[in-house]
């Protein structure tokens, strides 16, 4: 699964491409875990180029959010489309992961 990593002063952005489904989520979870070892105060997961989120993808987000909590990193999701957001909210993930429409909106709000 294609991902891009940007490191800025005080935050990190990981942008994912494609589908967070049962096929691609295991590899994505590994990437996410590696990136979170960098222990930045703020981590933005950009899902604006992700078209599909299944329970396997949610599992990756949960693992990422739990790791971030342990590392005192703020774990934030940005750019989800309406369908991804539905899955995210129906699962109650909005109770413990902040979500914003864009990177810009997240950076201005945090």
């Amino acid at each position: 699964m294609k991902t891009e990593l940007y490191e800025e002063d005080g935050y990190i952005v990981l942008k994912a491409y494609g589908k967070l489904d049962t096929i691609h989520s295991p590899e994505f979870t590994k990437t996410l875990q590696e990136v979170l070892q960098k222990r930045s105060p703020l981590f933005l997961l950009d899902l604006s180029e992700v078209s599909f989120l299944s329970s396997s993808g949610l599992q990756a987000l949960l693992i990422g959010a739990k790791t971030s909590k342990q590392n005192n990193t703020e774990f934030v999701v940005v750019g989800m489309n309406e369908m991804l957001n539905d899955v995210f909210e129906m699962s109650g993930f909005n109770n413990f992961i902040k979500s914003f429409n864009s990177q810009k909106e997240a950076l201005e709000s945090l």
Partner: protein
Amino acid sequence: MIPISAENLQESLINIERDVKHLDQKLSHKIMFIAEEIITNIIRHGDFGTNEKQISFNLDIKNNILTFRDNAKEFNMLTHPDPDITLDIKERVPGGLGIYLTKKYAKSIKYSYENGFNILKVYI
């Protein structure tokens, strides 16, 4: 019914996706979501014993019905307890969301066990 290969799940999902691509984006997303969750569940958790795995799927788009059929031991996944989605991050554990979200997306779901096959009909 279209046969689903447990050994090549990716190809099976791509084939289903091809059939729903022309539909409204929200509807095709819902179908793909349910198809992936149920088929993955059957492959990962179905107890096939010594049976040669037989899994199949049918999409009746006219009536909005997804049908899943498999010859694993009798198991009604609807009896699986729902996860508590109100829990805090510390208490949340992975798993159980696929069936839970399928129930949320569906208008109704019917399970039956007939002639050695689990049959799950998801009405969307």
